[in-house]
């Protein structure tokens, strides 16, 4: 016969039952906070860099215009000729009077096309613009 010391048998496992809940909370946080890209960008562009860039606080006001390195202009999901920019911008301004047009323009494009787009925006009375640029380090 063996004499065994009676041992207390404490639980040695960390309860993991609530771990999935914690992970799910994280998951839901990420799913809610992230915005999926709404548009397919059809033009190629590379943004310029600048030091004095500001963050745009209110993303809901933003409306995007892309100008690619081949000087094609895209608004929403379609490529437009320059003359159409006014119409589209006008409708955007009607639905959202405080719209900020965010201009994603390739850094190599010429000022001529940029100016033409700006004139169209002025005609549509969409006066708030934002030259999208990356923060220079």
């Amino acid at each position, binding site marked *: 016969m063996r004499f065994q010391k009676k041992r207390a048998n404490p639980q040695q496992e960390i309860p993991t039952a609530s771990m*999935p809940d914690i992970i799910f909370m994280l998951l839901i946080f990420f799913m809610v906070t992230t915005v999926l890209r709404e548009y397919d960008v059809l033009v190629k562009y590379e943004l*310029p860099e600048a030091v*004095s860039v*500001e*963050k745009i606080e209110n993303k809901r006001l933003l409306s995007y215009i892309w100008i690619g390195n081949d000087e094609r202009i895209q608004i929403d999901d379609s490529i437009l000729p320059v003359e159409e920019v006014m119409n589209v911008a006008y409708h955007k301004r009607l639905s959202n009077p405080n719209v900020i047009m965010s201009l994603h323009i*390739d850094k190599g494009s*010429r*000022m001529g096309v940029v100016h033409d787009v700006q004139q169209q925006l002025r005609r549509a009375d969409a006066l708030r613009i934002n030259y*999208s*640029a990356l923060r220079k380090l």
Partner: protein
Amino acid sequence: MFLKRRISREAVIPSSSLADIAFLLLIFFLVTTTIDVDTGISLVMPPWIEDVEQVKVKSENIANILVDEEGNCLLDDQIVSIPMLKDIMIKKIKANDKLIISLKTVRATPYRIYIDVLDELKQAYNELREEYAFNKFGKPLNQVTEAEMKEIRKAIPQRISLAEPEKVD
């Protein structure tokens, strides 16, 4: 005695791997989503007017900046390098608080250079505002309240005029 032994089955679904599955989903969302903050240089353009009436501005109250297609920068008929522009403009704005900066390009000017110049001007204004905020309120610009910011904007308004590009044949 041959009795069939009953295997006792536990009716619990093991939930220890649920966390792993949730982790996988989490990692998927972490990797695929980009929290991209839009950054850029904000401007408000003047409204469109059909017949632009010429407003005469005293020539000493205006600083003409011309940028050509090769990135040469002309400030009041003098060639300046773009990185120098900030310091020159700070001096000029300090000397004359009614100064309007007119930024003009040609149609072939690359956008990158235009942004560089605009950036210099914005930096000059930001530096002046920073200084004003520090002297008046004793704190940096990013800590002032909304009302104080209004006052700063009023004291140092940004007067940048974007002129129509010139056609060069």
